[in-house]
């Protein structure tokens, strides 16, 4: 669900990269990265990048970011550490927690599992790109109203997952919300309010089940 597939990602998908390695790389596997690059050049395979920094152009929240990155830099690392976009969070750096979720052409992806060079040519949206002119989106507003956040560290990831869901399916069921958020973890245990907020953003009036008894 989270992978838009190599076709959408330009020439440097993992599949084409691996294919380009061929047998030349097998012998070079134990050698230094530089010699891998040299072997590949010699083999006349696809143009290779790195290991040094290369120019990378990312389109994030409608703006163009021109960066110089080693090809091994992830999209998450590029956003958080080579620009000031720290909204996407690093919770695990291995595709298990979803705190780094961003949209690539409207599809939610783990930005920690996408190399920045792979994300070139895509429209990247981070949590910073949602509110326009200070006006929160319905999803952001619902997260606020329903208290769908505690420490807030997982919140950008959940908001991106719910945003992507509602773009595709404006009237999801509770189960569809749960499915869309299955790749996001929250340790504060805010899930019931996140579900409520997602449904609220979709126009379903949520009612709190909490009861206060004056004793």
């Amino acid at each position, binding site marked *: 669900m989270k992978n838009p597939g190599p076709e959408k990602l330009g020439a440097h998908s993992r599949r084409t990269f691996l294919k380009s390695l061929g047998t030349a790389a097998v012998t070079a596997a134990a050698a230094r990265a530089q010699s891998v690059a040299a072997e590949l050049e010699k083999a006349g395979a696809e143009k290779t990048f790195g290991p040094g920094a290369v120019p990378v152009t990312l389109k994030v929240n409608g703006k163009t970011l021109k960066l110089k990155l080693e090809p091994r830099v992830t999209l998450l690392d590029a956003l958080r550490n080579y620009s*000031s976009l720290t909204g996407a969070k690093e919770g695990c750096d291995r595709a298990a927690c979803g705190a780094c979720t961003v949209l690539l052409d409207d599809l939610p992806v783990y930005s920690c599992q996408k190399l920045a060079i792979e994300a070139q040519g895509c429209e990247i949206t981070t949590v910073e790109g949602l509110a326009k002119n200070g006006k929160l989106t319905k999803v952001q507003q619902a997260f606020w109203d329903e*208290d769908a956040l505690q420490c807030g560290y997982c919140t950008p990831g959940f908001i991106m997952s719910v945003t992507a869901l509602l773009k595709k399916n404006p009237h999801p069921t509770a189960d569809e919300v749960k499915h869309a958020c299955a790749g996001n973890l929250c340790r504060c245990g805010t899930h019931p309010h996140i579900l409520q907020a997602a449904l609220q953003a979709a126009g379903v009036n949520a009612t*709190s089940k909490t009861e206060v008894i004056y004793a």
Partner: protein
Amino acid sequence: MPSWPAQTKYISQSTPRVDAVAKVTGKARYSSDIQADGWLYGMILRSKWPAAKILEINLDKARQIPGIKAAVKVRDGEFNIRFYGEEIAAVAGTTKQACLDALRAIEVKAEPRQEFAVNENEARKDDAPQVWAGRPNASPGRPRERGNVDQAFGECAAVIEGFYSTPVQIHHPMETHGNTVSWTDEGVTAWSSTQGISSVRDGLAGTLQLDQSKVHVVTDFMGGGFGAKFGAGVEGVLAAQLSRQAKAPVRLMLTRFDQALAVGNRPSSFQKIKMGAKADGTLHAFDAENYGTAGIGAGGDAGGGGGGAALTMPYLYRVPNTRVKQSSVAVNAGSARAFRAPGNPPASYGMESAMDDLAVKLGMDPVEFRLKNDPVEIRRREFQIGAEKFGWKEKYQKPGSSPGFVKTGIGCAGAAWPAGGPSRQTQGEAQINPDGSVEFRLGVQDIGTGTKTVIAVVAAEMLGLKPEQITVKVGDTDFPPGPGSGGSTTCASISPTVYDICTKALQQLQTRAGIADARGENWFAACKKLGVTPLVVHGNWIEGLSSNPAYGVQFAEVAVDTETGLVTVKKIVAVHDCGLIIDTLTLESQVNGGIIMGMGYALYEERVMDDLSGVVLNPNFETYKLPGIADVPDIKVVLLNMPERGVIGIGEPATVPTAAAIANAVANAIGIRVSSLPITPAKVLAALGKVPAPNKET
């Protein structure tokens, strides 16, 4: 004696979190988001051995990696490693990639020790390898006896014996531990992901031998702690040393892998419980032996003790004759730290399991049995309210009598959080400006519990303003000192403090403005009369507006698939009290969170270590399972609002009884006790005799 207003506009209502906009737009800057000028990455090299003697660390090759600006050892000379993941050295560089390369280039000469122990059941044996040389891993434990237990068992109509165990649980806040530290000639500034800005400041000052006034700690936003983030930590000190050497700020956040090894956990427990009651259901005799491991934290003292593995036994219930023997077992693993209601969830699981097992033997309804033996009037009422809301009487079936292969069951358990209580040293200040804007500054931190919102709600109530008119600043050691966020004490510490600030502010403002009541609609006119000088008012925690302890009960309904062993939690009803409710909305979030964390403890979470290699086998979220949104059941929260008790915290009691209630529901569903957490499908199937039991732990 001060008292809370009887009629309230904001207190006990639902106020959305005041810092939510920053969090939903990505503008909130957490410690891991700080981009100080010229900042560098920091990373730590950790031991791959569970026990070793480090002879020499050579950082020369690491320093030569392009981009590396600093490299430091944890200490000079030879030293011992006592667990897999213990810190050895650290590097700082311009990119993450440079740091990764540099860690690989560090040369460590070490003598790995083949003798180590990571399994508490092995480590407690007399001939086990010693974690701390010359000290036994486990203390023999000294039995504490009240009454005459041996005689009392002879007077019981029913006696049960059980062996209940709980795993090591890992905190795993979504933001890992770490800091961005800048150490210049002027002093140290640390943007710290912490629950205690003051304790981090004092810790850094002590270790780095600086005046406390030269250390400034800032925590604007932090991504959870649950008890594990109070000190500066080894990682904080290393970040400071790297910053000093590199002459640049260093951001050193732990990896998720690091998080599972070295920065705290909840100790395990192995509880042998024998308990008896008279025919009318009155508990009469209790005999228990418990041990657990707090990692290397147990055994650091004169042998075996310490580390926080001891439990309150027999927990909630009144038993006239009790004998309890406990010990902590040291193993070669990262030390335990406080974890949301330390000692209570395991104690609750052991005792509440024994309660249900004994109720079954007596043929009594488990709720009736608890009402008979619970000495706390508030909690007895909570059991009654919960049973009614849950539909206990209609749902209760004899254990194992649910038809079909997916069996349903119900269970309940109670909580106490006795330690709580406010910090009497809490201070704060407010600055009231001539334009009517007002800013509160308290040296506490908001760890996600809603501390800033609580301050805004109380201030708005007292000043007759709206919560959004109050600017709240916390998380800065330049502000008047407040407590660390632990023990569920923050709300009860800050609410009376804000009350005091507001009372004093109103008095002073009214005097200076010559207005009888400066609140509400008179506020702006009164402030205008301040002229050009803002009013700054200091306040303290005051008596009479807060109290402790908190109680609570929870009821669980589960479905157990007897073909696959899978447990699904269908419903939780939670009844909690925390005195005067400040903000119902954020309170509900905390109760939900406690329940969900308790559910993870019941069903999924366990640090798994390999006895032979001494490594942690599941230092990641793929194999250390946290509850996800699809696992979360229908939760109903019932709150008792008791204004006359003043403000009491809720964070901890909410997580105490969940695992026990779920475990009792599973036992009720299948008619057999799964006596070890987490209740995995494999353990359920083993209990049903469908697969062989795993290695018996004795």
